[in-house]
């Protein structure tokens, strides 16, 4: 098998010992060090730390750390930067579970059941399952990249704007299914999310929409401001309102490790999540964000008792976390095989490679096999390191919950503000986060859930973009959405899902009417 020989070669690149002068200057002292392994560890560690800090995302961190990598050789530099990326994905889940703050679109779903588990004193189990599920998904995704990377690229290229639009419509139906309570409330949150996503300059004409003349809104709202405000800040306000519930939560932390039952319940969700996340991650234009939402919807739909979701179901953590990590990994495929970055993080990775004198393109696999296979092998090594870093840290994180809330919440708020500011270096974004905090509190008080709004916001921008592109290319013909088989397929699934989502609601409403 060529692939495995290549992977082995890649592993050797990662594990290679390089003689390093550890005391440069007068007394030089040269010893061989596994430099790439150390860089991978450093990247994973930094990534975990910044992932835990709410809002400080991989984009800002990679941008900040770029100058440090100038002195490294390109392979080592990229291994470290990739480590930051998936380390941050890991760390993001920790914050989502412990304090209900999603720094990125992909960890919104984890807040739903992960934080509920933490409230029930099972933060340790949630964190461990997230870490183990992510490790499994990451390992599988690494093999997928190595074996199927090239053929899968061709599949990604088959996705035109029309197919994309239909996929996003399907994703919106997931959003409705995410909600716990009333379907009507969920639908109104989806509508609000879509409306929020239209703020900013029109893609085609440049017309300012709903910006009220504020230049800062010309590029729309930053996702992190909405997510941290509407979920994180709102949660803090609620906790401050009734401190006694919070103390109960911190008091009853049970075992740090998942039980046998937890493992049994998580196995299939992790497998399904890995499959879903891997496929969606390959799609250009940030298809990876759909992964966790899709996984959650599926787990909820096939569960024997869907009412447990949103109340601390471990499947609702295991599946989406696996999907998230698998997608993060496979989103490297378009960049590695085609040289086309599918999302903002990959775009900055391309920038980093360019600074190191390597512009990724379709020939990178043949021209730079050491770099290509080294990077793929490093992903697996990195995932292993993340597991080694994160499992012992669980105890520490759980202890963090025991810090009195009056000390914890100002720290959380401060880090959130720093994080939001670091995205665009715009103070305005911090104010927007505060405003969304108030909105989120109002929604919470009135039984509206923010998750459907957040996914609608993310999908809204992509949907509009793809709709406009598809319609421009088809010269205004709507048929393009049913003529293309991929698009038609997604549309049919969307309709079926919608019917399934609405049916129980309609039925239960009728029951209610009858009992009254």
């Amino acid at each position, binding site marked *: 098998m060529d692939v495995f020989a290549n992977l082995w070669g890649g592993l050797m690149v990662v594990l290679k010992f390089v003689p390093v002068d550890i005391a440069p200057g007068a007394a030089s002292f040269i010893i061989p060090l596994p430099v790439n392994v150390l860089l991978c560890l450093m990247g994973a560690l930094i990534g975990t730390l910044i992932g835990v800090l709410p809002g400080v995302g991989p984009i800002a961190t990679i941008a900040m750390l770029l100058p440090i990598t100038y002195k490294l050789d390109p392979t080592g530099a990229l291994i470290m930067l990739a480590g930051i990326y998936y380390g941050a994905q890991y760390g993001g889940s920790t914050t989502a579970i412990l304090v209900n703050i999603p720094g990125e679109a992909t960890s919104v779903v984890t807040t739903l059941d992960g934080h509920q588990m933490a409230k029930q004193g099972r933060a340790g189990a949630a964190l461990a399952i997230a870490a183990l599920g992510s490790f499994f998904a990451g390992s599988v995704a690494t093999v997928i990249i190595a074996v199927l990377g090239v053929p899968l690229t061709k599949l990604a290229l088959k996705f035109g704007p029309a197919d994309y639009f239909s996929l996003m419509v399907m994703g919106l139906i997931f959003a409705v299914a995410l909600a716990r309570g009333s379907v009507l409330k969920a639908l109104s949150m989806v509508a609000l999310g879509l409306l929020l996503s239209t703020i900013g300059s029109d*893609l085609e*004409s440049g017309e300012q929409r709903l910006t009220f003349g504020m230049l800062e809104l*010309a590029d729309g709202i930053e996702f992190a401001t909405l997510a941290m405000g509407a979920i994180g800040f709102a949660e803090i306000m609620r906790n401050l309102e009734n401190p006694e519930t919070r103390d109960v939560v911190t008091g009853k932390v049970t075992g740090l490790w998942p039980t046998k039952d937890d493992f049994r319940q998580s196995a299939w969700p992790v497998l399904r999540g890995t499959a879903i996340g891997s496929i969606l991650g390959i799609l250009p234009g940030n298809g990876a964000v759909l992964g966790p939402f899709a996984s959650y919807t599926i787990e909820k739909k096939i569960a024997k008792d869907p009412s447990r979701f949103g109340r601390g179901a471990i499947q609702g953590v295991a599946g989406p976390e696996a999907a998230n990590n698998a997608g993060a990994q496979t989103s490297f495929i378009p960049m590695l095989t085609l*040289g086309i970055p599918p999302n903002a993080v990959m775009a900055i990775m391309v920038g980093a490679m360019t600074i190191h004198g390597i512009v990724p393109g379709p020939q990178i696999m043949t021209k730079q096999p050491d770099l290509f296979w080294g990077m793929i092998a490093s992903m697996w090594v990195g995932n292993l390191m993340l597991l080694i870093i994160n499992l012992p840290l669980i105890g520490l994180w759980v202890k963090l919950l025991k810090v009195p809330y009056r000390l914890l919440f100002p720290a959380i708020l401060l880090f959130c503000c720093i994080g939001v500011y670091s995205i665009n270096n715009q103070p305005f974004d911090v104010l927007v986060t505060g405003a969304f905090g108030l909105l989120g509190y109002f929604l919470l008080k009135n039984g509206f859930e923010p998750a459907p709004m957040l996914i609608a916001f993310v999908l809204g921008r992509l949907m509009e973009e793809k709709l406009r592109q598809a319609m421009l290319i088809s*010269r205004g013909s709507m048929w393009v959405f049913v003529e293309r088989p991929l698009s038609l397929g997604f549309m049919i699934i969307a309709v079926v899902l919608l019917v399934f989502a609405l049916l129980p609601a309609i039925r239960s409403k009728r029951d209610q009417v009858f009992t009254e």
Partner: protein
Amino acid sequence: MKAQNRRSWLAGAAALAALAAAAPASAQEFPTKPITMIVPFAAGGPTDIIARVMAESMSRTLGQQVIVENVAGAGGTTGITRAAKAAPDGYTIMMGHMGTHGAAPGMYPQLAYNPQTDFEPIGLAAGTAILVVAKKDLPPKDLKEFVAHAKANEAKINQAHAGLGSVSHITCVMLQAEMGTKINAIPYRGTGPAMNDLVAGTVDFMCDQIVSVAQQVRGGTIKAYAIASPQRNPALPDVPTTAEAGLPSFQVSAWNAVFAPKGTPAPIVARLSQALTAAVTDPAARKRLTDLGADVPDAAGASPAALAALVKRENERWIPLLKNAGVVAN
């Protein structure tokens, strides 16, 4: 009213800051602390890469770190607006480019700065040539055939660009003006997604910087008709110039240049200009950029006077072109 209040407040604050900074900032000592270079685009793009290579070399000359700060938004005008309002003490400089200092006045009626009067030009850093590229199975074999094909199929073919006001957008507006066509423009958010659909064949052609397209052309996933520069580029030696290929009037380069806010003291401008000149003539930095296909100026080309003239020339060229084409971004 409110905006005015804020502006006067800002002006007051800026004046105070300038006063505070004026005392220690004599040219001999400058710089005594790190310098911030605002890059008005996201990290990783062509302007950011050029800025980082320049910043690294300038740091060595100045003996203080030159830190790149990315302030993206509204085609780069958000970052430049902020940098223009910064204290003119030399500690905030910016990497402007063809869009922010050449074309923006033609596109943004409410632009908060004037490229010719609100800045102290420091010097040109690098230019990147623009290529006309197409999906690999588009029938025309060369640029002449392409122009004929574009005219004949005006209503059928599609042009992609990386967003309103982006280099790929406005250079294609120029190309279309030269060809006399009005072809459907499909907007994308960024070069990546636009390139994806060009490689997939969903769209027919686009114009973009050599840094963004060279690898795809070399890999044969797309084809290049011409390069809009006076000479062929060593990064893609087989691609003819527009003059060779029969459209000599289409000449355009996406230039990047360093500016300081208006009112920065002349000795400090001179010190920064000297550091920039050292950067463009530094063999290591030069090689880094030329390897990517960028054109790096010589010492004379990187002078403040040359940049002032370039900005004026570019304004005269872009503003009427974009106004005639009806490109409005705000």
